[in-house]
């Protein structure tokens, strides 16, 4: 593999993408930065407010600060729980899929179905599905004696959002893991069988190491998506009951478009974006490291 040539003419080929994304990202970001350092007296008079909003945001004792901290914590715990369920479940299902044959194509399409459904329709499905009176899921749970009510019980609401996310996105983990498993040459399985390795030993010593790169990608994708979840909780619980399922995105939209507090909303947007940026950078460097090793 010869080394990639250095050639700045490549910028000509990248220019359209750069322009498009710049237009979609930079201009809006400028307005956000603009609002985040000003306050308004209403009717479009703005005055310099320095980093006041940021200080409030990051100071839990202030009203906005407490709200931001709660939403952040709620979102992080949601992301971690969702990941903790989806990744192992996804791997388990991927391992149980048939390795070859005609059945694989249709099965993969069916598994991928939930991800093709518009997010608001997913919300609608579960809004109905989780109602104790007209939904199978709700009826089943109440049938089991649990006092389950999505609109009143904070814990029920929160758990429902987790179940929705697991139902909606575990297929991503399954598909990627399955692709990673298929890339493992047959010889490794033969060798493992010849060495009388148990199913668990084969998994730990062959499949898991080979899935390392895929799992990094899965965790990155899933963590980012859960960290910015908006539509499903908005449709099913509207962020309620109270603020039980008011995740970061929902809270941000409430402040920005609901209360139209531009300053705090802008500051929150920036901090929110900064957090995703840092997490993204960590994953990006790990992924490029893994890629380089593949080429090395």
């Amino acid at each position, binding site marked *: 593999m010869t080394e*990639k*040539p250095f*050639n*700045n003419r*490549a910028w000509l*080929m*990248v220019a*359209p*993408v750069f322009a*498009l*994304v710049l237009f*979609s*990202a930079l201009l*809006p*970001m400028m*307005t*956000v930065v603009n609002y985040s350092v000003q306050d308004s007296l209403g009717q479009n008079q703005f005055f310099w407010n320095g980093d006041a909003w940021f200080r409030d945001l990051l100071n839990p004792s202030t009203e906005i600060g407490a709200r931001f901290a709660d939403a952040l914590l709620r979102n992080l715990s949601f992301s971690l729980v969702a990941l903790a369920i989806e990744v192992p479940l996804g791997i*388990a299902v991927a391992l149980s899929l048939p*390795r070859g*044959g005609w059945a694989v*194509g249709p099965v*993969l*399409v*069916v*598994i991928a*179905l939930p991800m*093709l*459904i*518009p*997010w*608001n*329709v997913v919300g609608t*499905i579960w809004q*109905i*599905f989780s109602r104790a009176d*007209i939904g*199978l*899921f709700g009826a089943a749970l109440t049938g089991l004696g649990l006092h389950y009510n999505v609109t009143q019980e904070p814990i029920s609401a929160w758990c429902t959002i987790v179940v929705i996310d697991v139902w909606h996105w575990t297929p*991503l983990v399954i598909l*990627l893991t399955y692709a990673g498993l298929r890339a493992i*040459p*047959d010889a490794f399985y033969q060798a493992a*069988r010849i060495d009388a390795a*148990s*199913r668990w030993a084969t998994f730990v010593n062959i499949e898991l190491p080979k899935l390392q*790169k895929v799992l990094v990608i899965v965790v990155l994708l899933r963590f980012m998506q859960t960290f*910015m979840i*908006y*539509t499903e909780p908005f449709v099913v619980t509207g962020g309620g009951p109270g603020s039980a399922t008011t995740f970061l*995105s929902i809270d941000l*939209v409430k402040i*920005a*478009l609901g209360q139209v507090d531009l300053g705090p909303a802008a500051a929150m947007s920036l901090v*929110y*974006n900064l957090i*995703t*940026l840092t997490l*993204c*950078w960590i994953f*990006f460097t790990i992924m490029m490291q893994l890629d380089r090793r593949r080429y090395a």
Partner: protein
Amino acid sequence: MVDVLPRASVSVARSRPRSFTLRRGSGLLPKLGFAVYLVALMLPICWLINMSLRSNEEIMSTLAFWPHHPSLEKYYYILNDPTWIHAFGVSLTYVAINTVISVTAALPAAYAFNRYHFIGDKYLFFWLLSNLMAPAAVYAMPFFNLYYAIGLFDTVWAVALAHCLFNVPVAVWILEGFVAGVPREIDEMAAIDGYSFPRFFIRIFVPLIANGIGVTAFFCFMFSWVEQLLATTLTATDALPFAAVMSRSYSVSGMDWSLLAAAGVLTMIPGAVVIWFVRNHIAKGFALGRV
């Protein structure tokens, strides 16, 4: 996907495609587990279809898995109602525009990222990823102001361009994965044969990653089609997408559940049909070309 593998690569013994029994100890349990998961996955979708075939009264009164007297009434209503038809039309339009823009812009960029080093290439590639991962909520307000200011508010172009925020990066990353599949020697061979770059790119290179382009187009289509927040924020009346019409139907006519369910089922059809054609590369698409 190009199949020019160096001879030293693995030649898998040609024998019957082994079912998963090859993996010892994978007898009944995995099959059972897999069946349970599949049922759990399909239940909500079937429940939605079940709802769409029943009238509201029946839904509210009885909890039944099979509709007693199923009717396609709601589907006829949607498929003949001008606002719904307009909404689906608008959605398909901005999704198509966005897909075309994203893929055409991303193709040369993906090639450049894979084939050349250039100043800031790593950071640019990362910046695309960060935009892809950016929470749409953060951009809802700024986009609202921006497109309002440039007079594009409530048009299909607003949503199409707004979705470029994440669809162009998606297209670049997935295509870069497919470009990496084509050995660099083929580019050199074309140069040696005398191909100028544009002629090589169109006549030789694009056909080689044709299925990559197909998969990328599918994922741009799909991510734009499923997105709801920006689509509803940037539209008001004449460019209202189906998602907005669905959310409006909560408040106006009370909970018309069966109408909502029917609309939901209709939105699933485009994705389910198209994915069949790219089923061999679904994983590579979802993995942003990294698998």
